Protein backbone atom coordinates (compact mmCIF):
# COMPACT_ATOMS: atom_id res chain seq x y z
CA UNK A 1 0.00 0.00 0.00
CA UNK A 2 1.03 3.54 -0.58
CA UNK A 3 1.90 4.52 2.91
CA UNK A 4 4.65 4.16 5.40
CA UNK A 5 4.22 4.89 9.03
CA UNK A 6 7.10 6.43 10.88
CA UNK A 7 6.47 6.11 14.56
CA UNK A 8 8.54 6.04 17.72
CA UNK A 9 8.12 3.00 19.97
CA UNK A 10 4.79 3.44 21.74
CA UNK A 11 4.77 3.44 25.54
CA UNK A 12 1.24 2.28 26.07
CA UNK A 13 1.23 2.25 29.86
CA UNK A 14 1.98 5.96 30.02
CA UNK A 15 -0.54 6.64 27.28
CA UNK A 16 -3.19 4.90 29.35
CA UNK A 17 -2.33 6.89 32.42
CA UNK A 18 -2.24 10.23 30.70
CA UNK A 19 -4.84 9.84 28.08
CA UNK A 20 -4.90 12.54 25.44
CA UNK A 21 -8.63 13.06 25.50
CA UNK A 22 -8.65 13.55 29.24
CA UNK A 23 -5.94 16.19 28.89
CA UNK A 24 -7.98 18.05 26.31
CA UNK A 25 -11.14 17.67 28.40
CA UNK A 26 -9.46 19.49 31.25
CA UNK A 27 -7.70 22.01 29.07
CA UNK A 28 -10.42 23.23 26.75
CA UNK A 29 -12.84 24.52 29.41
CA UNK A 30 -9.90 26.21 31.17
CA UNK A 31 -8.97 27.94 27.94
CA UNK A 32 -12.51 29.05 27.25
CA UNK A 33 -12.87 30.36 30.79
CA UNK A 34 -9.64 32.28 30.67
CA UNK A 35 -10.51 33.80 27.30
CA UNK A 36 -12.40 36.65 28.90
CA UNK A 37 -9.10 38.02 30.19
CA UNK A 38 -6.39 36.64 27.89
CA UNK A 39 -6.47 37.58 24.19
CA UNK A 40 -7.13 34.32 22.48
CA UNK A 41 -4.39 34.40 19.89
CA UNK A 42 -2.11 34.20 22.94
CA UNK A 43 -4.09 31.22 24.13
CA UNK A 44 -3.60 29.49 20.80
CA UNK A 45 0.10 30.21 21.15
CA UNK A 46 -0.08 28.74 24.65
CA UNK A 47 -1.83 25.64 23.35
CA UNK A 48 0.84 25.25 20.71
CA UNK A 49 3.62 25.40 23.31
CA UNK A 50 1.70 23.05 25.56
CA UNK A 51 1.16 20.61 22.71
CA UNK A 52 4.85 20.63 21.82
CA UNK A 53 5.73 19.99 25.49
CA UNK A 54 3.18 17.21 25.73
CA UNK A 55 4.68 15.55 22.69
CA UNK A 56 8.10 15.66 24.31
CA UNK A 57 6.84 14.02 27.49
CA UNK A 58 4.59 11.55 25.69
CA UNK A 59 6.28 10.80 22.38
CA UNK A 60 3.56 8.41 21.23
CA UNK A 61 1.17 11.33 21.10
CA UNK A 62 3.51 12.96 18.61
CA UNK A 63 3.20 9.82 16.51
CA UNK A 64 2.15 11.15 13.13
CA UNK A 65 1.56 9.17 10.03
CA UNK A 66 3.77 10.23 7.14
CA UNK A 67 2.62 9.42 3.67
CA UNK A 68 4.92 8.51 0.84
CA UNK A 69 3.26 7.85 -2.47
CA UNK A 70 3.67 4.46 -4.10
CA UNK A 71 1.55 2.81 -6.78
CA UNK A 72 -1.74 1.52 -5.44
CA UNK A 73 -2.47 -2.00 -6.75
CA UNK A 74 -5.68 -2.74 -8.63
CA UNK A 75 -8.67 -3.34 -6.36
CA UNK A 76 -9.04 -7.01 -7.36
CA UNK A 77 -5.41 -7.74 -6.40
CA UNK A 78 -5.98 -6.89 -2.74
CA UNK A 79 -7.62 -9.17 -0.17
CA UNK A 80 -10.96 -7.74 0.91
CA UNK A 81 -9.87 -7.44 4.55
CA UNK A 82 -6.74 -5.51 3.54
CA UNK A 83 -8.58 -2.80 1.61
CA UNK A 84 -7.81 0.57 3.11
CA UNK A 85 -9.70 3.40 1.44
CA UNK A 86 -8.17 5.95 3.83
CA UNK A 87 -5.11 5.98 1.56
CA UNK A 88 -4.70 9.68 0.67
CA UNK A 89 -3.54 8.83 -2.87
CA UNK A 90 -6.75 6.99 -3.87
CA UNK A 91 -8.14 10.02 -5.68
CA UNK A 92 -4.87 11.13 -7.23
CA UNK A 93 -4.23 7.68 -8.70
CA UNK A 94 -7.86 7.36 -9.74
CA UNK A 95 -8.21 4.01 -7.96
CA UNK A 96 -11.19 5.00 -5.84
CA UNK A 97 -13.78 3.87 -8.42
CA UNK A 98 -12.72 0.24 -8.41
CA UNK A 99 -12.04 0.02 -4.66
CA UNK A 100 -15.39 1.47 -3.67
CA UNK A 101 -17.23 -0.59 -6.29
CA UNK A 102 -15.67 -3.71 -4.82
CA UNK A 103 -16.70 -2.70 -1.30
CA UNK A 104 -20.25 -1.83 -2.39
CA UNK A 105 -20.61 -5.20 -4.13
CA UNK A 106 -18.75 -7.51 -1.76
CA UNK A 107 -18.67 -5.88 1.66
CA UNK A 108 -20.77 -2.70 1.81
CA UNK A 109 -20.08 -2.15 5.50
CA UNK A 110 -16.37 -2.84 5.73
CA UNK A 111 -13.96 -2.88 8.67
CA UNK A 112 -10.32 -1.85 8.33
CA UNK A 113 -8.53 -2.51 11.65
CA UNK A 114 -5.03 -1.25 10.82
CA UNK A 115 -5.17 2.06 8.99
CA UNK A 116 -2.71 4.89 9.80
CA UNK A 117 -5.74 6.63 11.29
CA UNK A 118 -6.71 3.68 13.49
CA UNK A 119 -9.51 1.16 12.96
CA UNK A 120 -12.59 2.37 11.07
CA UNK A 121 -15.74 1.16 9.36
CA UNK A 122 -16.56 2.21 5.81
CA UNK A 123 -20.21 2.62 4.84
CA UNK A 124 -20.34 2.61 1.05
CA UNK A 125 -23.93 2.18 -0.20
CA UNK A 126 -26.33 5.10 -0.68
CA UNK A 127 -29.12 3.78 1.54
CA UNK A 128 -26.80 2.81 4.41
CA UNK A 129 -25.16 6.24 4.30
CA UNK A 130 -28.56 7.95 4.56
CA UNK A 131 -29.33 5.71 7.56
CA UNK A 132 -26.13 6.65 9.41
CA UNK A 133 -26.40 10.34 8.51
CA UNK A 134 -30.00 10.53 9.76
CA UNK A 135 -29.40 8.72 13.03
CA UNK A 136 -27.48 11.23 15.11
CA UNK A 137 -28.94 9.41 18.12
CA UNK A 138 -26.88 6.32 17.16
CA UNK A 139 -23.85 7.99 15.60
CA UNK A 140 -22.11 10.98 17.14
CA UNK A 141 -20.38 13.66 15.11
CA UNK A 142 -18.09 14.46 18.04
CA UNK A 143 -15.24 15.19 18.37
CA UNK A 144 -14.25 15.46 14.67
CA UNK A 145 -15.60 14.64 11.22
CA UNK A 146 -12.34 13.59 9.51
CA UNK A 147 -10.98 10.03 9.70
CA UNK A 148 -8.00 11.06 11.80
CA UNK A 149 -7.88 13.63 14.53
CA UNK A 150 -7.48 17.36 14.78
CA UNK A 151 -4.10 18.46 16.17
CA UNK A 152 -3.86 18.04 19.95
CA UNK A 153 -4.74 21.14 21.85
CA UNK A 154 -6.54 22.75 18.92
CA UNK A 155 -9.82 20.92 18.76
CA UNK A 156 -11.89 23.99 17.98
CA UNK A 157 -15.54 23.84 18.82
CA UNK A 158 -17.62 23.75 15.72
CA UNK A 159 -21.20 22.66 15.20
CA UNK A 160 -20.43 20.29 12.35
CA UNK A 161 -18.72 18.18 15.01
CA UNK A 162 -21.32 18.63 17.76
CA UNK A 163 -24.42 16.66 18.67
CA UNK A 164 -27.78 18.13 19.69
CA UNK A 165 -28.74 20.09 21.67
CA UNK A 166 -25.57 22.22 21.49
CA UNK A 167 -25.33 21.74 17.72
CA UNK A 168 -28.83 23.12 17.14
CA UNK A 169 -28.22 26.34 19.08
CA UNK A 170 -24.91 27.08 17.35
CA UNK A 171 -26.08 26.31 13.87
CA UNK A 172 -29.24 28.35 14.21
CA UNK A 173 -27.15 31.32 15.29
CA UNK A 174 -25.22 31.44 12.03
CA UNK A 175 -27.51 29.89 9.42
CA UNK A 176 -29.13 33.24 8.68
CA UNK A 177 -26.01 34.26 6.77
CA UNK A 178 -27.12 31.99 3.93
CA UNK A 179 -30.84 32.78 4.31
CA UNK A 180 -32.74 33.59 1.10
CA UNK A 181 -32.84 37.35 1.62
CA UNK A 182 -29.05 37.39 1.99
CA UNK A 183 -28.57 35.15 -1.01
CA UNK A 184 -30.55 37.56 -3.17
CA UNK A 185 -28.21 40.39 -2.20
CA UNK A 186 -25.20 38.17 -2.62
CA UNK A 187 -26.16 36.99 -6.10
CA UNK A 188 -25.68 40.49 -7.52
CA UNK A 189 -22.27 40.80 -5.88
CA UNK A 190 -21.21 37.32 -6.93
CA UNK A 191 -22.25 37.96 -10.52
CA UNK A 192 -20.15 41.13 -10.58
CA UNK A 193 -17.15 39.17 -9.31
CA UNK A 194 -17.74 36.36 -11.81
CA UNK A 195 -17.94 38.81 -14.73
CA UNK A 196 -14.84 40.64 -13.55
CA UNK A 197 -12.85 37.40 -13.28
CA UNK A 198 -14.05 35.96 -16.60
CA UNK A 199 -13.51 39.22 -18.50
CA UNK A 200 -9.88 39.13 -17.39
CA UNK A 201 -9.19 35.67 -18.81
CA UNK A 202 -7.13 35.37 -22.01
CA UNK A 203 -8.37 33.19 -24.87
CA UNK A 204 -6.14 30.99 -26.99
CA UNK A 205 -3.47 30.49 -24.34
CA UNK A 206 -3.08 27.93 -21.59
CA UNK A 207 -3.98 29.04 -18.05
CA UNK A 208 -4.43 27.34 -14.68
CA UNK A 209 -8.19 27.19 -14.16
CA UNK A 210 -7.79 26.36 -10.46
CA UNK A 211 -5.77 29.47 -9.71
CA UNK A 212 -7.42 31.91 -12.11
CA UNK A 213 -11.06 30.97 -11.62
CA UNK A 214 -11.83 28.40 -8.91
CA UNK A 215 -9.63 29.86 -6.17
CA UNK A 216 -10.16 33.47 -7.15
CA UNK A 217 -13.94 33.23 -7.18
CA UNK A 218 -14.01 31.29 -3.91
CA UNK A 219 -11.72 33.84 -2.23
CA UNK A 220 -13.95 36.72 -3.33
CA UNK A 221 -17.08 34.92 -2.19
CA UNK A 222 -15.58 34.23 1.25
CA UNK A 223 -14.41 37.83 1.56
CA UNK A 224 -18.00 38.90 0.78
CA UNK A 225 -19.54 36.60 3.39
CA UNK A 226 -17.14 37.75 6.09
CA UNK A 227 -16.89 41.37 4.91
CA UNK A 228 -13.17 40.64 5.03
CA UNK A 229 -10.67 43.15 3.56
CA UNK A 230 -10.81 42.43 -0.17
CA UNK A 231 -7.06 42.88 -0.75
CA UNK A 232 -6.32 40.18 1.88
CA UNK A 233 -8.84 37.68 0.48
CA UNK A 234 -6.22 35.09 -0.45
CA UNK A 235 -5.35 34.78 3.23
CA UNK A 236 -8.73 33.12 3.77
CA UNK A 237 -7.87 30.44 1.23
CA UNK A 238 -4.41 29.96 2.67
CA UNK A 239 -5.72 29.51 6.23
CA UNK A 240 -8.40 27.13 5.09
CA UNK A 241 -5.99 25.01 3.06
CA UNK A 242 -3.57 24.79 5.96
CA UNK A 243 -6.30 23.97 8.47
CA UNK A 244 -7.28 20.80 6.58
CA UNK A 245 -3.85 19.74 5.35
CA UNK A 246 -2.35 18.16 8.43
CA UNK A 247 -1.39 14.49 7.83
CA UNK A 248 -2.97 13.04 10.96
CA UNK A 249 -6.37 14.49 10.02
CA UNK A 250 -6.85 13.23 6.48
CA UNK A 251 -3.43 12.35 5.07
CA UNK A 252 -2.39 15.78 3.83
CA UNK A 253 1.07 17.22 3.32
CA UNK A 254 1.14 19.98 5.94
CA UNK A 255 2.49 20.14 9.47
CA UNK A 256 0.92 20.74 12.85
CA UNK A 257 2.92 23.96 13.17
CA UNK A 258 1.30 25.22 9.99
CA UNK A 259 -2.16 24.45 11.37
CA UNK A 260 -1.39 26.37 14.56
CA UNK A 261 0.15 29.30 12.76
CA UNK A 262 -2.81 29.55 10.40
CA UNK A 263 -5.20 29.42 13.35
CA UNK A 264 -3.17 32.10 15.09
CA UNK A 265 -3.20 34.45 12.12
CA UNK A 266 -6.88 33.85 11.44
CA UNK A 267 -7.79 34.40 15.09
CA UNK A 268 -5.91 37.71 15.18
CA UNK A 269 -7.45 38.98 11.95
CA UNK A 270 -10.97 37.99 12.90
CA UNK A 271 -10.64 39.46 16.38
CA UNK A 272 -9.76 42.80 14.79
CA UNK A 273 -12.71 42.51 12.45
CA UNK A 274 -15.01 41.58 15.32
CA UNK A 275 -13.98 44.51 17.50
CA UNK A 276 -14.39 46.96 14.62
CA UNK A 277 -17.92 45.75 13.99
CA UNK A 278 -18.74 45.67 17.69
CA UNK A 279 -17.65 49.30 17.98
CA UNK A 280 -19.84 50.26 15.01
CA UNK A 281 -22.78 48.46 16.56
CA UNK A 282 -22.20 50.31 19.84
CA UNK A 283 -22.17 53.60 17.96
CA UNK A 284 -25.63 52.76 16.68
CA UNK A 285 -24.63 51.96 13.10
CA UNK A 286 -26.75 49.50 11.20
CA UNK A 287 -24.88 46.25 10.66
CA UNK A 288 -24.54 44.50 7.30
CA UNK A 289 -25.44 40.96 6.27
CA UNK A 290 -21.96 39.52 6.76
CA UNK A 291 -21.32 36.72 9.21
CA UNK A 292 -19.74 38.68 12.03
CA UNK A 293 -22.48 41.30 11.98
CA UNK A 294 -24.95 38.48 12.17
CA UNK A 295 -23.22 36.90 15.16
CA UNK A 296 -23.12 40.30 16.86
CA UNK A 297 -26.85 40.79 16.31
CA UNK A 298 -27.86 37.51 17.96
CA UNK A 299 -28.04 37.41 21.73
CA UNK A 300 -26.76 33.81 21.85
CA UNK A 301 -23.62 34.71 19.95
CA UNK A 302 -23.00 38.44 20.60
CA UNK A 303 -20.22 37.58 23.05
CA UNK A 304 -18.80 34.59 21.17
CA UNK A 305 -15.44 36.31 21.07
CA UNK A 306 -15.18 35.54 24.78
CA UNK A 307 -15.42 31.83 24.03
CA UNK A 308 -12.27 31.46 21.99
CA UNK A 309 -12.54 27.82 20.95
CA UNK A 310 -16.09 28.31 19.78
CA UNK A 311 -15.19 31.53 17.95
CA UNK A 312 -12.25 30.09 16.07
CA UNK A 313 -14.07 26.78 15.50
CA UNK A 314 -17.15 28.31 13.92
CA UNK A 315 -15.25 30.78 11.79
CA UNK A 316 -12.92 28.10 10.48
CA UNK A 317 -15.88 25.84 9.74
CA UNK A 318 -17.48 28.47 7.55
CA UNK A 319 -14.22 29.33 5.80
CA UNK A 320 -13.31 25.69 5.17
CA UNK A 321 -16.91 24.84 4.28
CA UNK A 322 -17.02 27.48 1.58
CA UNK A 323 -13.52 26.91 0.26
CA UNK A 324 -12.63 23.39 -0.88
CA UNK A 325 -16.18 22.44 -1.72
CA UNK A 326 -17.02 25.21 -4.16
CA UNK A 327 -13.50 25.48 -5.54
CA UNK A 328 -13.33 21.83 -6.51
CA UNK A 329 -16.86 21.80 -7.92
CA UNK A 330 -15.92 24.76 -10.12
CA UNK A 331 -12.93 22.80 -11.42
CA UNK A 332 -14.76 19.45 -11.48
CA UNK A 333 -17.54 20.80 -13.68
CA UNK A 334 -15.07 21.81 -16.39
CA UNK A 335 -13.31 18.45 -16.17
CA UNK A 336 -16.62 16.57 -16.38
CA UNK A 337 -17.68 18.46 -19.51
CA UNK A 338 -14.32 17.60 -21.07
CA UNK A 339 -14.72 13.91 -20.27
CA UNK A 340 -18.29 13.98 -21.60
CA UNK A 341 -18.08 16.46 -24.52
CA UNK A 342 -21.55 15.57 -25.83
CA UNK A 343 -22.91 17.06 -22.60
CA UNK A 344 -21.17 20.36 -23.35
CA UNK A 345 -22.88 20.40 -26.75
CA UNK A 346 -26.19 19.69 -25.02
CA UNK A 347 -25.54 22.51 -22.56
CA UNK A 348 -24.68 25.08 -25.20
CA UNK A 349 -27.86 24.19 -27.09
CA UNK A 350 -29.95 24.52 -23.96
CA UNK A 351 -28.56 26.75 -21.17
CA UNK A 352 -31.79 26.17 -19.22
CA UNK A 353 -30.17 22.92 -18.11
CA UNK A 354 -27.67 24.83 -15.94
CA UNK A 355 -29.48 24.41 -12.58
CA UNK A 356 -29.87 20.67 -13.12
CA UNK A 357 -26.26 20.42 -14.30
CA UNK A 358 -25.12 22.15 -11.12
CA UNK A 359 -26.61 19.33 -9.02
CA UNK A 360 -25.03 16.78 -11.34
CA UNK A 361 -21.63 18.47 -11.00
CA UNK A 362 -21.90 18.38 -7.22
CA UNK A 363 -22.78 14.67 -7.32
CA UNK A 364 -20.14 13.76 -9.89
CA UNK A 365 -17.39 15.67 -8.10
CA UNK A 366 -18.40 14.99 -4.45
CA UNK A 367 -15.82 17.53 -3.27
CA UNK A 368 -15.80 16.19 0.29
CA UNK A 369 -15.41 12.43 0.12
CA UNK A 370 -16.97 11.55 3.47
CA UNK A 371 -18.08 12.54 6.95
CA UNK A 372 -17.10 10.53 9.98
CA UNK A 373 -19.14 9.46 13.01
CA UNK A 374 -18.60 7.46 16.25
CA UNK A 375 -21.16 4.78 17.18
CA UNK A 376 -22.90 5.69 20.44
CA UNK A 377 -24.10 2.10 20.93
CA UNK A 378 -23.79 -1.25 19.17
CA UNK A 379 -25.55 -0.97 15.80
CA UNK A 380 -26.36 -3.68 13.24
CA UNK A 381 -25.86 -2.37 9.73
CA UNK A 382 -26.13 -4.45 6.57
CA UNK A 383 -25.12 -7.64 8.37
CA UNK A 384 -22.26 -6.18 10.41
CA UNK A 385 -22.17 -5.25 14.06
CA UNK A 386 -20.65 -1.85 14.64
CA UNK A 387 -19.56 -1.66 18.26
CA UNK A 388 -20.10 1.29 20.56
CA UNK A 389 -17.13 3.64 20.22
CA UNK A 390 -16.17 2.47 16.70
CA UNK A 391 -15.31 5.00 14.03
CA UNK A 392 -17.76 5.01 11.11
CA UNK A 393 -16.97 6.72 7.81
CA UNK A 394 -19.86 7.53 5.45
CA UNK A 395 -18.25 7.57 2.01
CA UNK A 396 -20.45 10.02 0.09
CA UNK A 397 -18.09 9.61 -2.85
CA UNK A 398 -19.07 5.93 -3.02
CA UNK A 399 -22.79 6.38 -2.31
CA UNK A 400 -22.97 8.92 -5.13
CA UNK A 401 -21.80 6.18 -7.50
CA UNK A 402 -24.03 3.43 -6.08
CA UNK A 403 -25.58 1.50 -8.99
CA UNK A 404 -28.41 0.42 -6.68
CA UNK A 405 -29.64 3.98 -6.37
CA UNK A 406 -28.34 5.87 -9.41
CA UNK A 407 -28.56 4.75 -13.04
CA UNK A 408 -25.26 4.91 -14.94
CA UNK A 409 -23.66 6.45 -11.87
CA UNK A 410 -20.24 7.06 -13.43
CA UNK A 411 -21.71 8.99 -16.35
CA UNK A 412 -22.04 12.76 -16.19
CA UNK A 413 -25.53 13.55 -17.51
CA UNK A 414 -26.52 17.19 -17.25
CA UNK A 415 -30.24 16.49 -17.72
CA UNK A 416 -30.25 13.53 -15.33
CA UNK A 417 -33.62 12.92 -13.72
CA UNK A 418 -33.57 13.40 -9.93
CA UNK A 419 -30.11 14.94 -10.09
CA UNK A 420 -30.84 16.61 -6.76
CA UNK A 421 -30.97 13.24 -4.98
CA UNK A 422 -27.24 13.09 -4.23
CA UNK A 423 -25.29 12.73 -1.00
CA UNK A 424 -22.71 15.51 -1.37
CA UNK A 425 -24.51 17.86 1.05
CA UNK A 426 -25.15 15.10 3.57
CA UNK A 427 -28.55 14.43 5.11
CA UNK A 428 -30.05 15.04 8.53
CA UNK A 429 -29.17 17.72 11.03
CA UNK A 430 -25.64 18.24 9.68
CA UNK A 431 -26.79 18.82 6.10
CA UNK A 432 -24.66 21.44 4.40
CA UNK A 433 -25.76 24.88 5.46
CA UNK A 434 -24.28 26.60 2.42
CA UNK A 435 -25.89 24.34 -0.19
CA UNK A 436 -28.01 27.08 -1.77
CA UNK A 437 -25.10 29.49 -1.84
CA UNK A 438 -22.93 26.86 -3.49
CA UNK A 439 -25.56 26.08 -6.12
CA UNK A 440 -26.11 29.76 -6.80
CA UNK A 441 -22.39 30.42 -7.27
CA UNK A 442 -22.03 27.55 -9.72
CA UNK A 443 -25.19 28.56 -11.60
CA UNK A 444 -24.04 32.17 -11.98
CA UNK A 445 -20.58 31.04 -13.08
CA UNK A 446 -21.97 28.77 -15.80
CA UNK A 447 -24.48 31.37 -16.98
CA UNK A 448 -21.64 33.84 -17.48
CA UNK A 449 -19.25 31.27 -18.96
CA UNK A 450 -21.72 30.27 -21.65
CA UNK A 451 -22.19 33.81 -22.94
CA UNK A 452 -18.42 34.29 -23.26
CA UNK A 453 -16.79 31.03 -24.25
CA UNK A 454 -17.40 28.37 -26.82
CA UNK A 455 -14.77 25.98 -25.51
CA UNK A 456 -12.97 25.32 -22.23
CA UNK A 457 -10.49 22.61 -23.13
CA UNK A 458 -8.52 20.82 -20.44
CA UNK A 459 -4.85 20.47 -21.40
CA UNK A 460 -3.06 17.43 -19.99
CA UNK A 461 -4.02 15.82 -16.70
CA UNK A 462 -5.12 17.85 -13.67
CA UNK A 463 -3.03 17.66 -10.49
CA UNK A 464 -4.91 16.20 -7.54
CA UNK A 465 -4.77 17.13 -3.87
CA UNK A 466 -3.25 14.61 -1.45
CA UNK A 467 -6.05 13.84 1.01
CA UNK A 468 -8.64 11.20 1.78
CA UNK A 469 -11.18 13.90 2.67
CA UNK A 470 -10.88 16.68 0.11
CA UNK A 471 -11.45 15.32 -3.36
CA UNK A 472 -9.89 18.15 -5.21
CA UNK A 473 -7.50 19.65 -7.71
CA UNK A 474 -4.27 21.54 -7.14
CA UNK A 475 -3.93 22.57 -10.78
CA UNK A 476 -5.80 22.16 -14.07
CA UNK A 477 -4.57 23.77 -17.26
CA UNK A 478 -7.19 24.87 -19.79
CA UNK A 479 -7.42 26.78 -23.06
CA UNK A 480 -10.42 29.00 -23.65
CA UNK A 481 -12.04 29.67 -27.00
CA UNK A 482 -14.07 32.85 -27.29
CA UNK A 483 -17.63 32.65 -28.48
CA UNK A 484 -18.11 33.98 -31.99
CA UNK A 485 -19.82 37.31 -31.31
CA UNK A 486 -21.52 37.28 -34.75
CA UNK A 487 -23.60 34.26 -33.68
Amino acid at each position, binding site marked *: MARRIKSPTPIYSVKDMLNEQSINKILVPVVNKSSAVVPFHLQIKGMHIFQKAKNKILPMLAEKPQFVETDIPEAHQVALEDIDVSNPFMFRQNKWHSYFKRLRDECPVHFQPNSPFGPFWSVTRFEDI*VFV*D*KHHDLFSAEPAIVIGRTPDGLPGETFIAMD*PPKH*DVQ*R*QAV*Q*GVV*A*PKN*LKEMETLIRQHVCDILDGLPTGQTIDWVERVSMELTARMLATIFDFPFEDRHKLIEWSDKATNSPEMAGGTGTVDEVFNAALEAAKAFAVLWHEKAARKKAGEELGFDLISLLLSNKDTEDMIKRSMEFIGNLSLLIVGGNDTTRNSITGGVLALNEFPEEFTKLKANPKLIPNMVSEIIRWQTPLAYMRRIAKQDVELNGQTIKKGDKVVMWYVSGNRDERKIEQPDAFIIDRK*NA*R*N*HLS*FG*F*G*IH*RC*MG*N*RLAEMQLRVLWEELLVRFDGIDVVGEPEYVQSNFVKGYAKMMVTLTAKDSSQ
Partner: protein
Amino acid sequence: MANITFVEHDGTEHTVDIEEGKSLMQVAMDNGVPGIDADCGGECACGTCHVIVDDRWIKATGAVSEEEQQMLDMTPEKEVTSRLSCSVNLSSEMDGMVVRLPEFQM
Protein backbone atom coordinates in the same frame (compact mmCIF):
# COMPACT_ATOMS: atom_id res chain seq x y z
CA MET B 1 -62.78 13.83 -6.12
CA ALA B 2 -61.01 15.09 -3.00
CA ASN B 3 -58.30 17.60 -3.72
CA ILE B 4 -55.71 19.89 -2.17
CA THR B 5 -54.29 23.21 -3.34
CA PHE B 6 -50.63 24.24 -3.33
CA VAL B 7 -50.04 27.99 -3.47
CA GLU B 8 -46.65 29.06 -4.82
CA HIS B 9 -44.83 31.99 -3.27
CA ASP B 10 -45.97 34.22 -6.17
CA GLY B 11 -49.59 33.21 -5.63
CA THR B 12 -49.91 30.68 -8.46
CA GLU B 13 -52.31 27.91 -7.39
CA HIS B 14 -52.07 24.22 -8.25
CA THR B 15 -55.00 22.03 -7.33
CA VAL B 16 -54.29 18.29 -7.38
CA ASP B 17 -56.29 15.18 -6.56
CA ILE B 18 -55.71 13.44 -3.26
CA GLU B 19 -54.31 9.96 -3.59
CA GLU B 20 -54.82 8.28 -0.24
CA GLY B 21 -51.74 6.72 1.29
CA LYS B 22 -49.35 8.91 -0.68
CA SER B 23 -47.46 11.73 0.98
CA LEU B 24 -48.16 15.37 0.30
CA MET B 25 -44.65 15.60 -1.18
CA GLN B 26 -45.25 12.69 -3.53
CA VAL B 27 -48.45 14.14 -5.05
CA ALA B 28 -46.71 17.47 -5.50
CA MET B 29 -43.85 15.78 -7.36
CA ASP B 30 -46.21 13.54 -9.38
CA ASN B 31 -48.16 16.59 -10.51
CA GLY B 32 -45.14 18.75 -11.25
CA VAL B 33 -45.89 21.37 -8.60
CA PRO B 34 -42.83 23.67 -8.69
CA GLY B 35 -41.17 24.83 -5.50
CA ILE B 36 -40.67 21.47 -3.81
CA ASP B 37 -37.22 19.94 -4.26
CA ALA B 38 -37.37 16.78 -2.09
CA ASP B 39 -33.62 16.27 -2.30
CA CYS B 40 -33.64 13.18 -0.06
CA GLY B 41 -36.58 11.58 -1.83
CA GLY B 42 -38.85 11.40 1.23
CA GLU B 43 -36.54 10.39 4.09
CA CYS B 44 -37.28 13.40 6.27
CA ALA B 45 -33.57 14.15 6.05
CA CYS B 46 -33.09 17.30 3.95
CA GLY B 47 -35.85 19.79 4.68
CA THR B 48 -36.41 20.71 1.02
CA CYS B 49 -40.11 19.77 0.83
CA HIS B 50 -41.13 22.45 3.31
CA VAL B 51 -44.75 23.70 3.13
CA ILE B 52 -46.81 26.00 5.33
CA VAL B 53 -50.21 24.54 6.08
CA ASP B 54 -53.27 26.77 6.30
CA ASP B 55 -54.21 27.22 10.01
CA ARG B 56 -57.57 25.50 9.57
CA TRP B 57 -55.95 22.35 8.33
CA ILE B 58 -52.91 21.98 10.55
CA LYS B 59 -54.68 19.57 12.94
CA ALA B 60 -55.65 17.28 10.08
CA THR B 61 -52.00 16.83 9.08
CA GLY B 62 -51.23 15.00 12.32
CA ALA B 63 -48.36 15.17 14.78
CA VAL B 64 -44.84 16.39 13.98
CA SER B 65 -42.14 13.88 14.92
CA GLU B 66 -38.96 14.96 16.68
CA GLU B 67 -37.02 14.12 13.54
CA GLU B 68 -39.20 16.39 11.41
CA GLN B 69 -39.08 19.17 13.99
CA GLN B 70 -35.29 19.11 13.98
CA MET B 71 -35.17 19.45 10.20
CA LEU B 72 -37.76 22.26 10.27
CA ASP B 73 -35.75 24.14 12.88
CA MET B 74 -32.92 24.37 10.36
CA THR B 75 -34.82 26.57 7.93
CA PRO B 76 -34.96 30.32 8.54
CA GLU B 77 -38.31 30.33 6.70
CA LYS B 78 -40.06 28.21 9.33
CA GLU B 79 -43.54 29.29 10.44
CA VAL B 80 -45.87 28.01 13.18
CA THR B 81 -47.73 25.69 10.80
CA SER B 82 -44.68 24.53 8.83
CA ARG B 83 -44.48 20.87 7.85
CA LEU B 84 -42.23 18.70 5.72
CA SER B 85 -44.61 17.48 3.06
CA CYS B 86 -42.92 14.05 2.90
CA SER B 87 -44.15 13.46 6.44
CA VAL B 88 -47.80 14.30 5.80
CA ASN B 89 -49.81 11.28 4.67
CA LEU B 90 -52.87 12.13 2.65
CA SER B 91 -56.38 11.08 3.52
CA SER B 92 -59.76 12.01 2.06
CA GLU B 93 -60.41 14.09 5.20
CA MET B 94 -57.96 16.62 3.83
CA ASP B 95 -60.32 17.48 0.98
CA GLY B 96 -60.02 21.21 0.31
CA MET B 97 -56.75 21.66 2.23
CA VAL B 98 -54.56 24.63 1.25
CA VAL B 99 -50.78 24.68 1.73
CA ARG B 100 -48.38 27.50 0.86
CA LEU B 101 -44.87 27.05 -0.46
CA PRO B 102 -42.00 29.08 0.99
CA GLU B 103 -39.99 31.43 -1.24
CA PHE B 104 -36.99 29.12 -1.05
CA GLN B 105 -36.34 25.55 0.01
CA MET B 106 -33.20 25.48 2.12
